[in-house]
């Protein structure tokens, strides 16, 4: 069991490294291309957000950037997972391979780029003369957030084999979720939208991270514990669904 886990993680890391390399292969600017997209959306939204009336959010650039990169991590990973099993079909059919690696390597790959983006957030924090100390708690949030993403990725990757155009459906769904999640705006409490947002896990994860980093506090302990438990639960369910179905994946491709 331990050996198998080691195998999966080792191979996933190799695949993630390869994909990472391939994405900016043949370009001197390399890593810059990863950061360009989040930086551009950040800049655009900063301008838009600045124009919103009564923008009283403190440290708005940090507020925005954290929301943006966390949501990006989720979108990029799950959309990748919605295609990875299909794209690696010939592999799955011709080698006895732990199919988990195709999902895990995707998560790892986007975890790399997420880390780079987070460094940018820290740099921005320094620039805004924030108390940097609180940034070091982010990895704890990230750990549970990643568990959540792995769980969702496992589920999406399995369903993508059974439903051919799931990747399109998922792309639209994540886009909608992006607008519903308060990334460049804040939801006034006591509003109807706020009640609905309570059902949005992305809202909670982003909120916890922001509360930590900007307001130096942990959200109500109930919410916090609920988020942790649900991330573990989603991970467990995702893993269960995947393990249950993985022997049937090869013959459906």
């Amino acid at each position, binding site marked *: 069991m331990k050996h198998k886990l080691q*195998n999966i993680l080792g191979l996933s890391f190799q695949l993630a490294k*390869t994909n990472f390399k391939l994405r900016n292969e043949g370009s001197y600017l390399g890593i810059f291309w990863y950061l360009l997209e989040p930086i551009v959306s950040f800049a655009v939204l900063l301008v838009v957000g600045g124009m919103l009336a009564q923008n009283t959010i403190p440290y708005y650039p940090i507020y925005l950037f954290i929301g943006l990169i966390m949501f990006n991590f989720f979108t990029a990973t799950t959309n990748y997972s919605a295609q990875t099993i299909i794209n690696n079909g010939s*592999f799955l059919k*011709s*080698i*006895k391979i732990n199919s988990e690696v195709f999902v895990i390597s995707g998560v790892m790959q986007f975890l790399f780029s997420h880390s780079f983006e987070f460094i940018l957030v820290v740099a921005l924090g320094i620039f805004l003369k924030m108390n940097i100390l609180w940034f070091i708690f982010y990895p704890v949030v990230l750990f549970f957030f990643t568990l959540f993403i792995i769980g969702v990725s496992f589920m999406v990757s399995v369903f993508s084999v*059974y*439903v051919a155009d799931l990747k399109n459906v998922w792309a639209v769904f994540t886009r909608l979720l992006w607008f519903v999640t308060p990334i460049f705006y804040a939801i006034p409490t006591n509003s109807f939208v706020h009640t609905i947002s309570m059902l949005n896990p992305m809202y909670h994860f982003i909120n916890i991270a922001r509360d930590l980093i900007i307001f130096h506090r942990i959200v109500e302990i109930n919410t916090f514990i609920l988020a942790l438990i649900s991330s573990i639960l989603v991970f467990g369910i995702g893993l269960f669904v995947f393990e249950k179905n993985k*022997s049937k994946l*090869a013959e459906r491709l």
Partner: protein
Amino acid sequence: MTKEIIKRIEVQNISKSFSADCRSSIGALSTFINFVTFKKEKKDIVVADNISFDVYSGEVLGLIGKNGAGKSSLLRLIAEIYRPTSGKIKTHGSVVYLTGVEQGIVPRLTMRENIHLMGSVLGLSQKDIRKKFEDIVEFSGLRDHVDMKVYQFSTGMISRLNFSVMINCVNHHNPDVLLIDEVLSAGGDADFQEKATQKMEELIKGGAAVILVSHDVAVIKKYCNKVLWLDGGTIKESGSSDVIIELYERNAPIL
């Protein structure tokens, strides 16, 4: 024979059928509609029907039959890539399954990176790959091109790289059960072909239980002691290779 003869592959009454979707679309909408209306349009395709046989260590079993007779599916069942619908398959020892697919060569990476990637995909740790690296490069005869990107390689060079990595990784696993699906010829020039065939022979005669799928009757004749002739997912004939191949050739003359 000083080596102990062990039963390596046990196949007992296995059957396998695929439920083939006959719907024109398996998209989200049609899946939803079919779910709501309880509509099922499925047809079973039987690729293995009540097949039983054993293979012992040191034995080479040949599988012959027309396209679609269920040869590759049978290998995948033994390699545990597919699950049988019913019946039992047991293998003892390490299993290696080889297919003709060029397993994951990435053209935009260098040969060095490709060796590391393919090695990991074939189940080697980074440490093992580093150990094997020299052997692989040596065998491929592409030492001058180690840091060149593979998309600049000729077809022959790619076959060389592919075969070298494969054979070295397989040797590393020291397989007890070897399943070979049409990958006896290595491609490349005559020199390399000869070297590759020799390696392959060593591997096949190395004492593992081997199942060989090939359309090349001469190859089957050369290596196999026993032959199964598959037709439509069932065993049509089985027995010593000379007898079965004669029957097969009479029945399905090669044009």
